[in-house]
């Protein structure tokens, strides 16, 4: 039966080539836009370089102190993450790093903008950076405040040029000479918690990292033994925060959370509403808008095509086909059309993704189509096909047999 539907569908599509082209164009372009968006989201949210242990990590990025007249929020201080957070029992390791800041270095009369970041030794144990050369600095080097650095591949090329090995060489940044211990694969800036050009031990920081205030410029990663301990680790941190003494009379409440990656990535600072809700709403509205016009378009075209086939429908009804059969047939024809358009859309998206990767709009962000993205694309196709096929099919099934046979 399905084979017959398929043959009829192809015959109908070939009969009116212009309508077919319009429909395919609309579907494939909608799908391309949605696929590119999905690839982007998948990359930003799902790319787990370098934090491959993401499923058993929690991220602490912000602390907010509230008082009756004011509110203040920022990242946390090194002292807080080192002293208070290390009192927790469940985390196996705690990685502490600063947000990245900018400075300059001048090489051969050329200016290079450098982003630098301070980390502790455990940071490198939790995250799994790919080292093209050398290795990270260790705890001893951090404790001795040695002037060592891990640099990114882009930084190596910009500073040293074509050198094959730079481990042991000196790089000058922020008017200080650091010895390179390792070179890592680049991290795109969209992973802003792990991105930097130069990674330095926190002990060489010019800002006092022993400041006993709760807040500063550092963020923390808590690593648990296994995925099952995440909730307990989250709760343990919450309880610790609630027992904190207030820093000053101005504040009466302290908020800070250890959240999974996506929740902390989308954190907007709103304590009542998770940032995830905002992001999902924005995406949902965008998807709806992009799909709305092509759907109406397709419905329109389908309705007009049905009127064309009224005599065929009349004959089949006269022979005893039930409305249900006809509706079923038409929806399948529509699905075939949308899947065809979907295939074209997938090919188009691959081309466009190559173009976007080549244009290097965001450095080192490589978008690709993986299985999840394709699956979502297929789902969108099906939804599309159903949406645009239901109404015309219903209209068609309501046709009066006699009128249909008599009409032009």
């Amino acid at each position: 039966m399905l084979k017959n539907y398929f043959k009829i569908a192809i015959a109908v599509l070939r009969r009116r080539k212009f309508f077919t082209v319009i429909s395919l164009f609309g579907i494939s372009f909608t799908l391309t836009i949605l696929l590119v968006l999905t690839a982007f989201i998948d990359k930003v949210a799902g790319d787990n370089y370098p934090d491959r242990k993401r499923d058993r990590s929690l991220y602490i990025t912000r602390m907010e102190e509230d008082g009756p007249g004011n509110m203040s929020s920022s990242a946390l201080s090194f002292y807080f993450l080192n002293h208070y957070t290390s009192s927790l029992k469940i985390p196996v390791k705690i990685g502490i790093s600063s947000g990245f800041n900018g400075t300059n270095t001048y090489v051969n009369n050329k200016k290079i903008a450098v982003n630098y970041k301070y980390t502790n030794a455990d940071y490198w144990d939790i995250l799994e950076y790919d080292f093209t050369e050398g290795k990270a600095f260790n705890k001893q080097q951090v404790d001795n405040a040695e002037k060592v650095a891990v640099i990114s591949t882009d930084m190596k090329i910009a500073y040293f040029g074509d050198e094959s090995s730079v481990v042991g060489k000196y790089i000058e940044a922020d008017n200080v000479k650091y010895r390179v211990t390792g070179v890592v694969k680049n991290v795109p800036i969209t992973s802003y918690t792990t991105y930097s050009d130069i990674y330095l031990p926190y002990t060489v920081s010019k800002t006092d990292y022993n400041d006993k205030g709760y807040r500063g410029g550092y963020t923390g990663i808590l690593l648990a033994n296994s995925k099952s301990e995440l909730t307990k680790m989250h709760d343990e941190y919450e309880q610790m925060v609630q027992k904190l003494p207030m820093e000053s009379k101005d504040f009466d409440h302290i908020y800070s959370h250890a959240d999974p990656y996506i929740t902390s990535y989308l954190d907007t600072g709103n304590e009542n509403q998770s940032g995830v809700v905002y992001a999902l709403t924005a995406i949902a509205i965008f998807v709806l808008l992009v799909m709305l016009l092509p759907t109406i378009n397709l419905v329109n075209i389908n309705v007009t095509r049905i009127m064309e086939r009224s005599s065929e429908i009349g004959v089949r009804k006269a022979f005893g086909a039930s409305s249900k059969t006809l509706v079923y047939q038409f929806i399948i024809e529509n699905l075939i059309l949308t899947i065809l358009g979907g295939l074209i859309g997938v090919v188009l998206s691959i081309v466009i993704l190559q173009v976007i990767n080549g244009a290097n709009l965001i450095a080192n962000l490589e978008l690709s189509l993986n299985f999840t993205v394709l699956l979502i694309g297929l789902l969108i196709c099906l939804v599309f096909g159903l949406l645009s096929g239901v109404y015309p099919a219903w209209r068609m099934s309501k046709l009066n047999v006699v009128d249909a046979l008599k009409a032009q």
Partner: protein
Amino acid sequence: MFKHLFKLIWNKKKQNFLLISEILVSFLVIFSVFTLLVYYYQNYRKPMGIDYGNVWEVNYNNSFKTDNTDSLNLFYETLMQTLKSFPQIKSVSFTSFNTPFSQNHNTGGITVKNKKVDNTNWYTVDDNYQNVLNIELLEGRWFNKGDAVAKDKHIVINSDLKEKIFGNDNAIGEFIGDGDNKNKMQVIGVVNAIKTKGDFANTEPGLYNRTDTGSFRWLGKILVKVNTGEDAGFESQLYKILANYLKSSNVEIEHLVNKRKSANYFYLVPMIVLLIVAGFLIVNVALGLFGVLWYNINKRRGEIGLRRAIGASGKSVSAQLVSESMILATLSLIIGAFFAMQFPLLNVFDLPTSVYLTAIILSILFIYLLVFICSLYPGKQAAAIYPAVALHEE
């Protein structure tokens, strides 16, 4: 003629319902696109307010640690004199973190005549700030040394703030209170407003404070105006001097020109994405319209053939078809305009009414043009129908 056309369309209202809704949705999409474009364009036309071409911004932190205010001031005054002694540097100014094109903002409220006015940008700057950025002075004067010992706190406001609280009245010499209405400040000058968020953003009300003896404890930015054509050679020299003098600080030098580009990206990127998506949607709609109209004409061959046989010219046949489509468009545009007019009436997003009205007019014109072009070819097809052939068919 129109009554006749309206009747024709009304008879087939169910069939045309989908077409009307399609045009309505595309009108709303085009309306939002044009609103954004018109708003950006209006902002773009406004003058920037500063000369940013040769100005570099130095970021530093960990200010000189001392309890003695005099040595604190001496430390930074010495730095300023050192910098000014360079022939390549024209002017130097210390300022708070909310420099032009930066991501830092400091807003607060002020109280005027017991009314609180929110969302005013507070800047803390020194006497050279106006010179470094070449901000135009409209009334009164900028800060000078004498303001340090004045009885009341002297401030300079920008033209946006002046309009908001004084309108056309005189502002010089007037007093305004801060957010809690505890401290009174006296206005001594009015300067031109600056587009601090980039080319495509609006100017915002702003208020300038003068630095005082304690400010150096927390200030972290220096604006340096250099001669035209200074490149990385001098910049690395400057960098070394700053880094060696400010030993405990991380130093970064940025160019205002580049910061402006980054600030503009925030506005340009969403707009480009919106344009691409809207463009694709409109092409979709155009093709759909084209197809449906073409199909409708094929269905009405008998009717058209009859009209031609009676003596209608080809031109009048195509004119009729085009007018039918335009009337369809008008019907949906009336509904669309009703929804669109809610925006300026409800003052959504605080955008000026002129932006919305211009956007509505442009969108209406765009939709009419779109429908017109899409119905031209089918109309021509209809005019080419031979009466004899058309009437012969059955």
